[in-house]
């Protein structure tokens, strides 16, 4: 299945902005972030097709996953 991964803010550093990946059925968000060297604790916002998801959410063909790090400064 094909899934579009979008990274935001500092997650783009040394990685990519957007990438389409070929993934096997049953892949969850955690399986996507591990090879990217992103820990689940570093995920502040995780959107699957624009809706709230988390590291355990299972992906489907055609999905778009958007991942954001915590931004807390003032």
């Amino acid at each position: 299945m094909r899934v579009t991964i979008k990274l935001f803010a500092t997650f783009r550093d040394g990685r990519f902005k957007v990438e389409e990946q070929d993934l096997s059925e049953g892949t969850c968000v955690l399986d996507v972030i591990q090879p990217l060297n992103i820990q689940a604790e570093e995920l502040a916002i995780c959107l699957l097709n624009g809706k709230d998801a988390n590291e355990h959410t299972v992906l489907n063909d055609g999905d778009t996953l958007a991942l954001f790090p915590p931004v807390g400064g003032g």
Partner: protein
Amino acid sequence: MKFEGRYLRNKKTLSDEDQLKLANSCVAIVGCGGLGGYIAEQLARVGVGRLVLFDGDRFEVSNLNRQIMATELNIGQWKVEVAHQRLKSVNSEVQVEAIRGWFEEDRAPELLKNVDLVCDALDSRDSRVMLERVCHQMNLPLVYASIAGWFGQLGVSLPGDFSVSRLYGHGERGVESMWGNPAFTPAVLASLSVAETVKLLVGRVPSLRHAWLQVDLLAMEFERFEIQ
């Protein structure tokens, strides 16, 4: 001294009626650092009648890179007191209340008495969630913003929305601990916050309710996400 024509250049962005609404409004700015300093400066210039500033810190040398109120001459002074002095010299028609200390949830009804809107200019995720909870309890609109490096986020949370807890309730310490905050990011995010604040105060519909703006000054991208 009278400064007739002070708001001449606000027209026709802001009508006389809008200007009057601003003059009769009170905004609390929680945090008077990178974001809060610029927010206070702009709200005073645009003509908001009363500002309540909260911050429990004094200026340090490391604030000089980005905090508009910080100068080489006021290192060591309380941020809210410096801001008070500066704002008086910018617009003496604005009443400023400077509260030297951190915002205490238990004292919220007293601290936010007569306030019409709250601007979040805090620097931690937990305190933002707390501030939203307080605002909702007191039926106050909240304009929130946060920054880290080249990046920022902002939006509007009206009572019952819980946008801040959705965005800031997960994840560890913000990436600003590694990326810091350069001069331009707080200035941009503060300006965006003030634009939303002014809209709410004059009775226009804010653009970022049930949504947030993801700001990337490295890629120069401003992307809006719905909070569903």
